[in-house]
């Protein structure tokens, strides 16, 4: 399959040596939504030897406008994104190792998940998870390629332990001002642009092109024709991650409630794994309809509310942002 990578090996910055380095590399993509799909596409097509994908969500119709690995059938079946992604990517490149993990990344499992990984790619949609990735990566000495995209704008930077400041040097709050794809929308070109800037920094790192590595945060608005680069500069001397080495996100005890970013959904974790067939029987008489696949079960409640039970024990309460109401519904249908 030398032919497959012939045009990439012709590129002087990669060459045959670079292609071999890519083949020996292992990357982890956390979040397989819009950015994650595009990132995985680049990594798999360019021949990175091992690509691990982690995501806790399933494909919905509203994803199709920008999440390039998924199609209508995936949404109809409500397939976990990692499962749908693995199917598509396996057909694209059968010579690399693909790993699909349908789960939540937490402070207790992050170290295990990133072990033996050369590089972590950010496909997440919230700063809480990004800080967790940042802290874990810096504690383990793994480069972390941040990307964010919303509306028509986005930003990206590669953070390299020992080489650059970290994400926490630049951003101190996990708050992004409430602007999410679910509040201000998003268009597909900015997603591909940002993910591609992430991907090219990843490839540079993996082939050892240190001189070309960008030491900047790139900010782009594709609709309003803006492009701005900011040098990362020096680390903040009091950075709790890369300087004080406290890695705050790793110390946090997990909440059992996580409010998903602006999607009118509350996730409650902590339940033991669900036997979905059993739960189908349990819930069917009590709700307005149940749909299931091997990975999850969706129960339609009144007033646009929906419960989604995942085999791994998580429950998503959709149609509300109110944690108390979500807990009430959880208690009513799932128990405590």
């Amino acid at each position: 399959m030398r032919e497959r990578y012939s045009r990439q090996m012709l590129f002087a910055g990669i060459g045959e040596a670079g292609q071999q380095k890519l083949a020996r590399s292992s990357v982890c993509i956390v979040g397989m939504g819009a950015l994650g799909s595009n990132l995985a596409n680049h990594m798999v097509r360019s021949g990175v030897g091992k690509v691990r994908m982690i995501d806790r969500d399933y494909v919905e119709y509203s994803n199709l406008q920008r999440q390039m690995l998924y199609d209508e059938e995936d949404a109809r079946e409500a397939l976990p994104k990692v499962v749908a992604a693995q199917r598509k990517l396996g057909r694209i490149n059968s010579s690399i190792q693909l790993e699909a993990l349908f789960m939540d990344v937490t402070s207790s499992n992050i170290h295990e998940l990133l072990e033996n990984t050369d590089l972590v790619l950010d496909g997440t949609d919230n700063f809480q998870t990004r800080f967790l990735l940042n802290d874990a990566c810096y504690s383990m000495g793994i480069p972390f390629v941040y990307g964010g995209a919303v509306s028509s704008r986005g930003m990206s930077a590669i953070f390299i332990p020992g080489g650059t400041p970290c994400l926490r040097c630049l951003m101190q709050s996990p708050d992004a001002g409430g602007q999410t794809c679910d509040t201000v929308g998003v268009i597909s070109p900015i997603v591909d642009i940002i993910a591609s800037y992430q991907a090219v920094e990843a490839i540079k790192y993996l082939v050892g092109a240190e001189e070309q590595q960008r030491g900047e945060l790139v900010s782009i608005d594709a609709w309003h024709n803006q492009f701005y680069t900011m040098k990362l500069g020096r680390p903040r001397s009091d950075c709790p991650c890369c300087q004080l080495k406290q890695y705050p996100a790793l110390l946090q005890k997990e909440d059992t409630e996580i409010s998903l970013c602006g999607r009118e959904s509350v996730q409650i974790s902590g339940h033991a794994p669900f036997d979905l067939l059993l739960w189908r029987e349990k819930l069917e008489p009590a709700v307005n309809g149940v749909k299931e696949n091997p990975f999850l079960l969706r129960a339609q409640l009144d007033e646009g509310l929906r419960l989604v039970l995942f085999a791994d024990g998580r429950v998503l309460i959709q149609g509300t942002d109110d944690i108390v109401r979500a807990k009430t519904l959880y208690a009513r249908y799932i128990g405590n």
Partner: protein
Amino acid sequence: MQLSIRLFASLAETLGATSLTYHVENKPLTAGKLKELLSASYPDAASQIAISMVAVDQEYAPDDTIINDAAEVAIIPPVSGG
């Protein structure tokens, strides 16, 4: 001094401009102090300014960075979403 400040993303939308000329008396002016002053001048944007990065001459400026007269300043809100 007169500072020319570039605004990005949601901040540009809230203030309805992609740049502004800002008059500051304080000297020496730090990046952190500038954020405070701007928040006071534009209370509607205060929460966004609080979480934003300051860049001076296209380089990240931590709170204690001194901003000089000729500096090119940019205020950049972080972008989440993915």
